[in-house]
């Protein structure tokens, strides 16, 4: 029972980390960034590079943030900016960008599987059951991320402007807020977060050019049921992630793999606003 419970909590934490960047972009720009998976892959390779250069595995995380941020900023400038009024086309174009990222990575590295040194190895005993220390650290990281993003949105003037753009972009513009700038910053931040998430999950999954895609769909479904609220995302991560763990445990991992997608589709059919309280 204890391992299942811990799996449930850590899975929710991982899903939260993986989805928060996508949620931020969706909330502010009302578009789905299908390059999110590609950016996660990029982050995974940042961790691989840190290992290859003999750096501390912790360095992989800021490295991923920088890579993701730079790539995200350029994508926003060159491609995404012209698709604000074509949300379905934006999905396709960002998917194309994801292919480009994947192929460049394949050209630089190769098609094979790589490994990154985990920042922490070993297990801790929780109520007599040994459990992966790193997975537990991810809970702390998810909490830190949630609190950090909330504080940034509530406490800074850019955060306030961002919330204003989420709520009513036209009104925000009329008050002198440069919503284009807010969008750029958001996309950059969202991309950085995607890459960080990619680096953080490297100890749990192997690194290959397609590693992000599996996560993209889960993150996408979670964001759709959460609207634009970080709080709803936490609820959605726990409920859907929990369901995934339970289904995987009792009905096998194959059915577990489709739990989030199937459940989210049903939730949206019954309640189009999902977990957001609007």
């Amino acid at each position, binding site marked *: 029972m204890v391992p299942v419970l811990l799996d449930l909590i850590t899975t929710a934490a991982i899903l939260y980390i993986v989805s928060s960047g996508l949620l931020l972009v969706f909330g502010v720009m009302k578009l789905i960034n299908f390059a999110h998976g590609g950016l996660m892959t990029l982050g995974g390779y940042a961790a691989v590079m840190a290992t290859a250069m003999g750096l501390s595995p912790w360095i992989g995380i800021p490295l991923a943030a920088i890579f993701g941020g730079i790539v995200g900023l350029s994508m926003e400038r060159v*491609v995404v900016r012209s698709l604000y009024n074509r949300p379905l086309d934006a999905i396709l174009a960002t998917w194309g960008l994801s292919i480009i990222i994947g*192929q460049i990575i394949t050209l630089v590295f190769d098609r094979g599987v790589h490994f990154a040194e985990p920042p922490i190895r070993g297990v801790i005993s929780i109520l007599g059951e040994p459990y992966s220390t790193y997975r537990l650290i991810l809970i702390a990281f998810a909490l830190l991320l949630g609190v950090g993003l909330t504080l940034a949105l509530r406490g800074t003037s850019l955060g306030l402007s961002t919330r204003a753009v989420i709520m009513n972009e036209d009104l925000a513009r009329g008050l002198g807020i440069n919503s284009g700038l807010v969008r750029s910053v958001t996309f950059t931040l969202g991309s950085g977060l995607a890459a960080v998430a990619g680096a953080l999950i490297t100890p749990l999954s192997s690194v290959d050019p397609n590693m992000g895609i599996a996560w993209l769909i889960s993150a996408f*479904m979670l964001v759709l049921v959460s609207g634009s609220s970080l709080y709803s995302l936490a609820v959605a991560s726990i409920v859907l992630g929990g369901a995934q763990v339970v289904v995987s445990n009792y009905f096998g991992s*194959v059915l577990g793999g489709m739990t989030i997608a199937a459940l989210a*589709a049903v939730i*949206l059919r019954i309640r189009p606003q999902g977990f957001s309280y609007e």
Partner: protein
Amino acid sequence: MSEANVKEVASTSLPRPHFGPLTRMVIVASIVLIGVGVAPLFMDAYSVNVLVRSMIYATIALTVDILWGYLGVLTFGQSAFFAAGAYATALVFTYGGFSAEYAFAALLIGIAVAVALAGLVAFLAFWHGASALYASVITLVLPIIVTQLLFSGGTYTGSSSGLTGFETIPLSSEAWFWAVGVWLVLLTAAAWMYTRSDAGRLLIAIRENEQRCKYLGLNTSNIKAAIFLICAAIGAIAGWMYANYTMVVAPEIAGFTFGTELLIWVALGGRGTLFGPVIGTIIIDYASAQLQGDFPFVWKLVIGIVFVSVIVALPRGILPLVSNAADWFRDRIGIAQPQQHSQLQLRQASRSGRNIIGVESRGPALVVSGVEKRFGSLEVLSGIDFEATYGEIVSLVGPNGAGKTTLMTCIADGSKRSGGTISIGGHDIAHRTPEECVRLGVGRKFQMANVFDSLTVGECLQIARARLDPLSKWQKSGVCSLPPSAMRVVRATGLHSDLNLPAQVLSHGKKQALELAMVLALEPKVILLDEPTAGLTKAERTLIGTILTELAKTEQLCILLVEHDLEFVREISSRVIVLHQGRIVLNGSVDEVVNSELVKSVYAGSGH
């Protein structure tokens, strides 16, 4: 200037014998079929091999184009139907062995499974009120679930390595080339005929403005579902061919990645062009096979870059670019372009009598009693009671936020009000959807002119008649029957000389008139007009006013109109209802309202 063009076309093209696009299509299709016939004789075995697969893919790309390019449903899920057909075949052959009967059975099973899956998707994705994004999400979930189901089949479905080594229809590569080639040509020709037929225009109308279609009495959810099911069946047939031909199936063919690859081919070829996606798929898949060996990653990178550039800069794909270039070239060397438009003819419609209320109905046309509307705790309408009879023009006036448009919406869509009853010609609208309300005889014109921008004026009118005069599914009929009322609007406003112009180039005034004609084409008994004169010039206002008074008199229409232009209201109304803060404050003759102190105070803003 454009009007002059149309007239000129009309006078020069009519006497010429009709050498239609249909004939040209048959010629082109025959040439391509001959090409398919001789091609394998001149190609190496590897190319023939690859092209069979490419052509199978092209048939699914064709369905993706119909769904996305015409109907506007961005689908990631066609791969799942393909896999349904392929796995059905592989499983039947693996566990039953090969025979002609089994091959036929496998085809039927594959189609049945695909159609069942598509029915489930359509039920989820196309319900009344579902967003375009939600429909896409469901088509995205489908391949994920199907892939997982294939994995969970374990050794029975071959799990991640799939099934192989089963015996299939014994045909040579050349024979497959001919079979698949003929199927592709026939399918493309059929799709071409369907999409340019009157019914095919309806797909574009739904993509452009589904709400308007619903208020024209068309059940768009059912239409979308029907198209989706047919496309799923075609996908399953492609899967059946694929399994028979390649003798191997793997879970990847069901996946989301293959689903998006189809979208890439369609986008590059040119969505909404049919030929573009077919040609694009064949070229890209064939080139991939040729280049995969030498530059596998660079090739995919190039495709990715071209794809992103096309989405951003050429949303209509590459084929339109090629055909534009061809037109330009033809202009340069002075070959006159064949006239594309066949002249549409307007006809007087005989009374169809398909509306539930007959012409002979007695009693009030519209009864509204105790209607309320709340948004949460906010009460927008309360205690609305009034009646209107046939032949009456009733104007709803009142300041902004008084609830006028909300009241219109409640009459045209039974699911919108929070309380009270509304009946049309003695029939309670209960919780009927907008399309069912149209059947009761309600016609609604929206505030901003709500027409189908990329269709021609004539096509807009045909779509408006679609409920009463079923559209031809295989040709452009060239005829549109209109009831006398709609005909009068079309003639009086000069729209009859614009029938072949795209609606988007019409002036604002003509767009308003077109929408009015579309509403009248429904043969309604009660029409709801939301600010029909907004943005019109003085002369256009007078014209619309005259038409409306005439219609009320001669057609015995009950007209309910929301209007801010009180001068206009005074000229045409038989009665005026004043709404203020969600209540009726006055319901009386024009004179009573004009001389009312209460109304003056409501409008002058000096309190209540």
